[in-house]
């Protein structure tokens, strides 16, 4: 499939088609300041602006809701359940959010033994339009964790857009994407438009490399975390300001740990709920008799990093379950920067570590 060029009017056309096709969510750049995830309305299509960076919210609630009913009992009513995927589109997500969905896919959809029917139902009906990042937040570090500020064919999008002069370069990922593009006036892209895309990608990649240079390590984060056995001082140093709010795991597009709870639904029936949970909270691994293998904050801190950079890649072909979106950095009540913690893993003395709490990282000056 050749690259296509879509005009700004063509984009409105595409959004209208998606709106009619199914339920439409988008990351909207027209908010003051930062792009936000929202449900699309027909009226808002006219003033919709594509986001220049990732949304404030991750899109994970669209595939794993914060709370969902997964069973009702007794009575073998829903042991085998009917799944009927609903048509739903998310428009304008960044690579770090698509990578998050891929992280979930491996666990909930592609497991050879235990497949989550509720996840599959949501995932199967999902139409994904990704967009290249035109800028990066100071907290973004996808380049350090196998990510990038744009998507490549094979990453799993239906359509990918790159903002170029006066419009968009479109890469079609699936037949469904091709179908929806019909009637939007998309035309063959010229070489100069394709060159514009490459230039943008190179620019944002360079910015990421520059702002993250101070956190770069000789070995990859995965190698570093996987090699550690004893609790490194970095987890105590950087974890010391954690107030156990759980924000880091809630905003994370790669965090999926959950709990299962049962409720009385009345009339002799009971419902089983699956809810997001957070490994940073003490109750997460507490056992009967108040035994807790992760009693201290540093232990739970280490557990979160281990899951992302050791346990997950160990099980899933070397992929981390952190996409480097930086949301945990932006939202931490204790001003903890994940990159600083990782960078200091092999540093023995606290004096040689980056400061805790982490100062905000300054964005490199534009154009440099």
């Amino acid at each position, binding site marked *: 499939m050749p690259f296509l060029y879509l005009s700004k009017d063509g984009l409105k056309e595409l959004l209208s088609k998606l709106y009619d096709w199914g339920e439409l969510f988008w990351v909207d750049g027209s908010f003051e300041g930062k792009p936000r995830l929202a449900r699309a309305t027909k009226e808002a299509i006219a003033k919709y602006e594509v986001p220049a960076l990732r949304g404030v919210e991750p899109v994970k609630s669209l595939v794993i809701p914060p709370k969902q009913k997964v069973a009702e009992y007794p009575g073998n009513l829903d042991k085998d359940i009917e799944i009927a995927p609903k048509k739903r589109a998310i428009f304008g997500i960044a690579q770090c959010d698509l990578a998050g969905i891929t992280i979930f896919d491996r666990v909930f959809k592609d497991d050879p033994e235990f497949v989550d029917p509720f996840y599959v139902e949501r995932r199967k009906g999902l139409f994904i339009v990704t967009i290249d990042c035109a800028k990066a937040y100071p907290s973004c570090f996808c380049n350090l964790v196998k990510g990038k500020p744009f998507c490549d064919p094979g990453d799993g999008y239906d359509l990918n857009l790159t903002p170029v002069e006066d419009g968009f370069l479109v890469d079609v990922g699936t037949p469904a994407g091709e179908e929806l593009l019909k009637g939007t006036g998309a035309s063959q892209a010229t070489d100069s438009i394709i060159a514009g895309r490459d230039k943008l990608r190179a620019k944002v990649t360079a910015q990421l490399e520059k702002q993250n240079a101070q956190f770069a390590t000789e070995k990859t984060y995965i190698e570093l975390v996987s090699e550690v056995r004893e*609790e490194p001082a970095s987890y105590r140093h950087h974890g010391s300001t954690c107030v156990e709010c759980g924000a880091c795991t809630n905003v994370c597009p790669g965090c999926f740990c959950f709990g299962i709870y049962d409720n009385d639904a009345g009339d002799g029936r009971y419902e089983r709920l699956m809810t997001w949970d957070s490994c940073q909270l003490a109750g997460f*691994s507490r056992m009967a008799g108040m035994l807790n293998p992760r009693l201290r904050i540093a232990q739970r801190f280490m557990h979160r990093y281990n899951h992302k950079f050791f346990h997950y890649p*160990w099980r899933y072909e070397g992929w981390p379950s952190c996409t480097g979106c930086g949301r945990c950095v932006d939202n931490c009540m204790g001003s903890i920067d994940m990159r600083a913690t990782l960078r200091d893993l092999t540093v023995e003395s606290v004096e040689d570590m980056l400061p805790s709490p982490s100062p905000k990282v300054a964005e490199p000056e534009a154009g440099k």
Partner: protein
Amino acid sequence: MSEKMKNIYYPIDAEVVDVVTETSTIKTFKFKLSEPLKFRAGQFVQLTVPGIGEAPFTPSSEPGESTDLEITILRTGRVTDYLHDFIKPGDPVGIRGPFGEGYPFDKFKGKTVLVVGGGVGLAPMRAGIYGLFQNIDDYKRVSIKFGARTPNDFCFTDEFDTWAKKPHTDLKLTIDRPFPGWTGTVGVVTVLLDDLDVDIEDTYVISCGPDIMLKFVTLKLLDLGFDPFHIYLSMNRRMSCGFGKCHRCNIGPYYICKDGPDMCYGEIMNYPNVFG
């Protein structure tokens, strides 16, 4: 575009048919399942108490495929207290599973199997022992060592004689402190390992009990020269899903629910907080 899929969160219906008091804190619950459940020795299930919640237990009944299932339960918290206080024959419950790998009996062929259990740890061990008895001639010897706080804290005492009479099987008991009328060994379960008469290199160990017991049993075995890869421990960890997704029960990269719950000590020994 709709299709049918299995709901992995759904418990199959079961009914309590009998409740047997084993000790002051342990009861065995006997269930009739609405459909047969097939499990291997060492595998566990999630037991649902309607509206109260789920907790993981290793059945104490014979491995295989059946609609009969027994679970022996120590009271210790929300779900288990409710079971002890309120659940009676005729009550509905739910079962999800089986989960986990179970014991690697294939590895034990031609070897001695040392079974070390303490407290309520005897419950899961009974399924293991029944499993060994199913093919007792596959093993050189089965040597069982059980410990409890007092003589009244052992469960399954009425079966001990039958077990000891099985071919090439022996059973030894100990209690923590002297007790009126007890003439046997006194001391925690590791004292039964003091004068071990097995060929250590040719022996595999399976053990289940509280974390603290597992720790001292393991240290003792290593001291005696056991290969860490010959020691299988039933690990205790908080669990929600039972199938390697909720990420509570891990030790290092291993999931106790999926790769265990009986973990080869050699594989987990280098990770933090093995014994809590």
